[in-house]
């Protein structure tokens, strides 16, 4: 044994458990607005992730128990599960989770070695391969034309069966970001778009607030540093704010951008993943502002309604470079 002889630090497991706990407000809000299907999605993603994690650990000859207990696979499952539309078919959930755990995580060396955020790899694979299923979000309860009971939802998720005389269109709707993009393409004015029923719902704002609440808890617990969320949210706010000021008819307000899509989950839960992000404070600022810029550009000009997942993956590529060029000066060697 060698010095130091003592340690006192939260273990990896404790850190992951705190992050999982920080997701609970968002999960609760999700269930409130979209119903219990969310929990089925999360459960299925979790089981898939844990089974595949154990399988891959065994295959790689690593001790299964300590790594299964670290909570990282569960966190990937939850982040991906929350990004998949509620009521998505079971195979979509399993495919995305399998990609995240097997390919994005373990084939790159497992915990600590994966260059890309596993949940976002899973998400990107799904949205590229199954764009239809991935954009069919359940309409918030307040504007849906018809409702399904829980057993019908399970029927749909696992057997692709809808009750007679219920169409999928009646249950789902495009997300606010999706609607905005389509309507802008149709040359509608911002005022007209914002008076559409989807913008009358408050689900998105509450979801964003729930992620924000979890994020503030992580900041308070010193699990994440302020650099990433502040830089990411700030960049999106500044860019969208500037364009909104210049041309409010074509550019949505910064508040809309912040409360929509994956801005908040990205700021506090995705970009803050230590494994796939930079380690230096300056690097974190650069990394997150790059992701904010890309997110906003993809929202404006990309083929997909939201850009957080792609922005994260593109910035993941830059992490070694960012780290190499943002090394802070050491003690006594500051200019």
């Amino acid at each position: 044994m060698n010095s130091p002889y003592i340690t006192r630090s939260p273990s990896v497991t404790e850190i992951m458990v705190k992050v999982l706990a920080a997701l609970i407000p968002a999960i609760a809000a999700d269930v409130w607005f979209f119903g219990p299907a969310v929990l089925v999605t999360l459960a299925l993603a979790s089981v898939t992730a844990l089974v595949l994690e154990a399988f891959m650990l065994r295959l790689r000859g690593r001790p299964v128990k300590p790594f299964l207990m670290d909570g990282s696979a569960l966190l990937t499952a939850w982040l991906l599960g929350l990004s998949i539309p509620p009521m998505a078919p079971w195979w979509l959930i399993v495919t995305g989770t399998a990609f995240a755990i097997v390919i994005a995580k373990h084939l790159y060396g497992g915990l600590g070695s994966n260059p890309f955020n596993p949940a976002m790899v899973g998400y990107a694979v799904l949205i590229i391969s199954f764009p239809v299923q991935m954009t069919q979000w359940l309409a918030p309860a307040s504007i849906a034309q018809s409702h399904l009971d829980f057993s019908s939802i399970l029927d749909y998720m696992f057997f692709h069966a809808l009750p007679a005389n219920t169409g999928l269109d009646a249950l789902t709707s495009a997300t606010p970001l999706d609607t905005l993009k389509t309507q802008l393409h149709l040359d509608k004015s911002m005022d007209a778009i914002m008076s559409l029923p989807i913008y009358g719902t408050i689900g998105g704002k509450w979801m964003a607030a729930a992620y924000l609440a979890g994020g503030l808890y992580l900041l308070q617990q010193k699990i994440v540093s302020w650099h990433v969320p502040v830089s990411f949210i700030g960049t999106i706010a500044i860019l969208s704010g500037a364009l909104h000021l210049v041309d409010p008819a074509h550019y949505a307000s910064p508040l809309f951008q912040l409360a929509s899509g994956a801005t908040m989950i990205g700021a506090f839960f995705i970009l803050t993943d230590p494994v796939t992000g930079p380690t230096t404070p300056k690097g974190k600022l650069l990394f997150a502002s790059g992701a904010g810029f890309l997110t906003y550009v993809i929202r404006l000009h990309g083929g997909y309604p939201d850009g957080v997942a792609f922005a994260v993956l593109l910035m993941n590529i830059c992490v070694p470079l960012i780290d190499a060029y943002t090394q802070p000066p050491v003690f006594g060697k500051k200019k």
Partner: protein
Amino acid sequence: MRQLYHFNGGVHPPQHKDQSTIDPIRIPPLPEKLIIPLHQHIGSSAKALVQPGERVLKGQMIGQPEGHVSSAIHAPTSGKILSVGMEPVPHPSGLDALCVILEPDGLEEWIERVPLDPEMDPGTMRTKLKDAGVVGLGGAVFPSFIKLNPGSKNKVRTLILNGAECEPYITCDDLLMRERAFEIAEGAKLMQRLLGAEEVVLGIEDNKPLAIEAMKSAGGMEVVAVPTVYPGGGAKQLIKVLTGVEVPAGERSTDLGVQCFNVATAASVYRAIRLGEPVLSRIVTITGNVAQPGNYEALIGTPVDHLIRQAGALPGSSGAIMGGPMMGIDLPSTHVPVVKAMNCVIVKSEALFPKALDPMPCIRCARCAESCPAELQPQELYWFAKAKNFGKAQEYALFDCIECGCCSYVCPSHIPLVQYYRYAKSEIWAQEREKKASDLARLRHEFRVERMERDKREKAERLAQKSAQAKEL
């Protein structure tokens, strides 16, 4: 009020200091024998001056300094030299070292002690300190007379005394300041004069109110309570906190107008000059798994187990640490002697120091970087050390690492980071030694080849000359 500065990171480990500060400094009985290493300081070993069978007096020099960077060793009590030979010593290398074994006769018969003139010529005073075996007692054991020479170029403005004692468990400086503030203050005056320093500032962590009070009433210096944060007692960290000056790795603080000494060193300067007593003992904290933790004024060479017996060894002990739990080293056994570098011995037990948890992979959380007082990127150094990419590790300032252990302390993956850095450093040193050796060998080879060619050439020339002469004839 002095403006205090802040250094990056640091940690707040549990203190465990109270249990060893209940009693005043204890004087242990004379041990049956003393094992006195001849190399207790940075620099070259002292040369043995005694033979087995010889009688020595208390304070008699038994090891003479060799070369400039060296220090003298003395007989801590009167008695008979039993032998001079290799013995296990408390050193990170774990290697045996040359020691003088002394059997005390119990008479405590001193050499003639000659108090010196405090106003004497600085150069002579430094030589006296070298001959009195005065070295840094904070743990680095660098010969003090060298650090007390400001040189002609530099002006030392501030003399800093280090009474921070930031490592958990250790309380020897705390007790020394409480009980012998006068000696420290008088020693500081002598040191200030040698350095020509304008001010003397003593930094004490604010968890030692009694020491602060005692030193304040001793006077002669500015006593500053510094925040309790490990490693606030690292020389560089304390200099930063008290003056704002950052001493870069590889540079001397005197070049920046600051010099720093441990408080116990100041006390031994006082004893050496004003009382004519060389360094024969030091205060050692005996704590951990013992019945009565406390501080002992131990003669140099006292076997550690003699002190542990005094403090009451408890069952369930599993070895001992020299130093604190953050930077200490495992003792090879408790039969090793007290040396000038030994400030504390912590008797280990499973309960006090549970086995380290199995390391998990690094998740790049950078808690280590946040805690690093040298402002390094420990996670990068870890990757480079692990990959044996030593060039890159040096580029990322591996040698600025002070091995304080903060990074390992906070690592959620329980990675023994400091061990990786020690490994990388020793590999780099080994490579450099090898390169030096091979450079020398190549130089020798080239020289030999050249010499042989020159011999051949000269021979050919001589032959040619001879044959030319023969032709002329």
